[in-house]
């Protein structure tokens, strides 16, 4: 006889006992292993026929197995019985601190991007991504910005050393998400509802400007898109993001790649539109927008006689700073955990 066989039998019996759901089942197991014709009992019966040396070792382990199984059945029965419980004995100090799992923090920009994405996805926009390092053509040229436009100056926009495309010009760190407009039009025929959220770069740094920041850009191109659709979409966003009571307004503005062009304002969060030092006469500026310039459509391979569109580009940090009353954009990017762990 093999000792490991006895071991296995014991293990098998105990695991069956531990999984038993009722007294009846326990009783069945008891009979199966320890009953008159039970497996252990059968083994016990073989002991007398063993040699003296085997008797000691094997006999011992069979007896051990029997005891262990009996004990297991007893313990299991006990724990299954309803006991009389002394509740006072079981007193817990429920006011002592709990043992918490570790909880970290998502960056405010991430949370805001998720929120913005959800808002626009509900009305049929799809989030896209386009290069952050882009050729001049996509960032400026195709967007109707003339060769000598100030935005192209070395003190406004960051350029990469030496990189240059024969046709598309120098490589720039995109100063706006609008560079995604042409890329989108090149790969997606109308109807288009694009949401492009990406890092942008400009050559400036102070409390309200970081050299790297995020913008979210919408682009809609379809057969009958007009100014009222731009208004409707941006109103919808402002209500969803800032709350129903917020009002928006559009003011005339100027961008090379839209005509007409607008700036979008939302009523001030601090004063509710009465006018205060934070806002301009009750309004806070959200960002720029406009009807896509016919030349831009043409550069994207879309016939401006058939299609029209609108686009908007807002700063992610700007909207979140407005929402949370943050006064220094640089806090978001300098990795100070005392700040980041607040959110």
């Amino acid at each position: 006889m093999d000792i490991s066989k006895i071991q296995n039998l014991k293990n098998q019996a105990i695991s069956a006992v531990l999984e038993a759901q009722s007294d009846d089942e326990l009783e069945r197991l008891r009979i199966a292993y320890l009953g008159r014709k039970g497996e252990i009992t059968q083994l016990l019966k073989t002991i007398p026929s063993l040699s003296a040396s085997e008797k000691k070792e094997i006999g011992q382990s069979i007896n051990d197995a029997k005891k262990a199984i009996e004990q297991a059945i007893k313990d299991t029965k006990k724990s299954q019985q309803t006991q009389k419980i002394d509740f006072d004995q079981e007193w817990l100090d429920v006011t002592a601190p709990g043992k918490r799992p570790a909880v970290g923090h998502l960056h405010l920009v991430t949370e805001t991007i998720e929120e913005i994405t959800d808002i626009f996805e509900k009305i049929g926009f799809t989030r896209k991504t386009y290069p952050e390092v882009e050729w001049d053509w996509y960032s400026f040229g195709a967007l109707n910005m003339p060769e000598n436009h100030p935005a192209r100056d070395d003190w406004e926009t960051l350029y990469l050393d030496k990189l240059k495309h024969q046709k598309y010009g120098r490589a720039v760190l995109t100063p706006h998400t609008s560079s995604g407009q042409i890329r989108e039009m090149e790969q997606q025929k109308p109807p288009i509802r694009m949401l492009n959220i990406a890092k942008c770069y400009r050559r400036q740094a102070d409390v309200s400007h970081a050299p790297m920041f995020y913008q979210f850009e919408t682009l809609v191109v379809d057969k009958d898109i007009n100014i009222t659709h731009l208004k409707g979409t941006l109103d919808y966003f402002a209500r969803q993001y800032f709350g129903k009571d917020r009002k928006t307004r559009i003011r005339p503005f100027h961008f090379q790649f839209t005509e007409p062009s607008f700036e979008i304002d939302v009523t001030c969060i601090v004063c509710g539109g009465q006018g205060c030092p934070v806002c301009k006469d009750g309004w806070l500026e959200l960002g720029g927008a406009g009807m896509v310039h016919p030349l831009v459509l043409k550069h994207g391979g879309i016939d401006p006689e058939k299609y029209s569109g609108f686009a908007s580009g807002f700063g992610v940090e700007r909207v979140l700073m407005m929402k949370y009353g943050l006064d220094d954009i640089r806090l978001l990017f300098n990795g100070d955990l005392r700040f980041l762990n607040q959110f």
Partner: protein
Amino acid sequence: MNILIPDSWLREHLISKATPKQVSHYLTLCSQTVEKINQVKNDSVYDIEVTTNRPDCLSVYGLARELNAILSQNKIKATLKPLVENQKEIPQIKKSLPLKVKITQPSLCPRFTAIIFDQIKIKPSPKVVQDRLEKAGVRALNNVVDISNYLMLELGQPMHTFDYDKIKGAKMILRETKKGEKITTLDKITRTLPQGAIIIEDGEGRIVDLCGIMGGANSEVDSQTKRVLLFVQTYDPMKIRRTCQALAFRTEAAARFEKGVDPGGVMPAMKKAITMFEKNCGAKVASHLIDLYPNPKKEKTVTLTQRKLNHLVGLEIKLVEAGKILENLGFKIKTDNNQLKAMVPHWRHEDISLPEDLIEEIARIYGYHHLPSHLPQGEIPEQKKAPRFEWESQVKQSLKDWGFTEVMTYSMVSLSQLEKSFLDPNDNLKISNPLTKDWAYLRSSLIPSLLTVLVTNHQEKIMIFELAHVYLYQSLKELPEELPMLTGMVNGQQFYQLKGIVEAILTMMGIDKYQFEPYQLKQTFYGKIFHPSRSAEIMVKNESLGVVGEIGPHLTAKFGLKGRVTAFDLDFRELVKNASKKKQYEPLSKYPAQVEDLALIVPPQTLIGEMMTVMKKISPLIVSLELFDSFQKTRTFRITYQNPRKTLTDKEVGKIRKRIIKRVKTKFDAKLKQ
């Protein structure tokens, strides 16, 4: 650019009962934004931001013209008074004082006008002039200089006055500079000029004017001045801008010239200037008018159809009404049936050329606030969201739940950050015009940035991660590869903790076939960053997904970090490529499992991961194998055996167990603990 406009000055040109509040409200909604109204004495002063395409609005008269159209549209009566000086005849004189002018290139100065006055008496300006200038934020100096500032504000035309007697040889040559020429300007600062600045030299070769920016001190009008030469010009905007930028110096006049000044506005300004010189300085015209305008702007007509107007605005504005709006803005209109022809006024020449440009004019005066709001009606495009975004949210959320704080750091790093990380600057893309040396290279790894975050924070326990692009050089003719990386970092020796995190991420993303291999590639860039014997490479289908391990102590020392640092650096694009959301249903086994613990004694430096792989491969009936305990040389494994189709017999389990023991003995020299 912002300008300050006193309400009283505006009312000299605009008759209306509109209150300052109404003026501000409607101007903002329909034209230029009034940022605030300042009360100065008994006057309201508007602080107005003027957009770059509307230099014509950088003036009292330009804004009065806008308001005339806007207020009328909003049912507030308004009348724009014509400039009476436009009717003025320039006095003809018999004997003109001489002035010889030579312009080397006409493009430098598209329109050049000049006139000389005699019998000037220098004294303070009339009260009203001083008062208006001050409210507009300009210091009043004397009657001559004030005229040029006054008219710049009123009509948007900068001008300059010289002491005629200080121009040697009554001769002027307008030309571009060669690099390094010098001028001492009116503010008594000597400036070394860049190449391509526009200047005027006199008969003795002295530079007397830095055109469009500031005059020379050597030809300045002073208290002794009797004869004044007045300049009213336009200049090449680009040249002015480049010069200002090179000098890091910009004046009010320059800010206007670089946006483009209307050549059509030169003569009205000249005529009004003559009137003011006569009135305020007792001056007499003492020369013929010089007016050099070789290439006058051609008149421009833009056509707009009713269909296009309705289509872009989203509601019907009748062409007749549209025409009226445009006429109020100074356009000349011809309307027939379904189209409108608009002749563009000279002050809008640069800005208006397409039907869309006219639509903007019509719609803004009509009032964007009068247009309804609708969500786009058309068909919703069917597009699939890139899987990357979903995985990004899920992984970020999990890391947060596991106690990590997400950081976002700049894509640009410094030379010192690269050097401290033993990264070759030549492998990183260089920015040709960085703002500061802290932001000079595009990073090729997130590790230097995260180490910097560790340096700047002093908490006892730090757990951070970032998911961001790194930028990898391809060739001089290609855009860099933008590769999303997921990098996590904690302080202390936390290899197994971070390895566990990586394993959990892999499992969550449905990647089950992976291996952690002792890190061998010492020559790669990772080899220089990570600890050579305390890091592992994560392999999936023979492709590397990244590394987890301790940062090399040589790096942490360079960054000035005291303890050890552990990190993972994962190629997120590869992760997403291998990820799967596929779940497979397997019927629950009806047959019991057998669980047993096996204690093995292993030689030092045995790779347990490898050993477990080998053990697991021995039989498909081993459904789970866990490292249960590790103590000194003993490794205890908990093994679960199960057959989905029947109850396993002891004999079958015993067989597998024997094979395990034999295999680990031959392959790893491990022995069963007795």
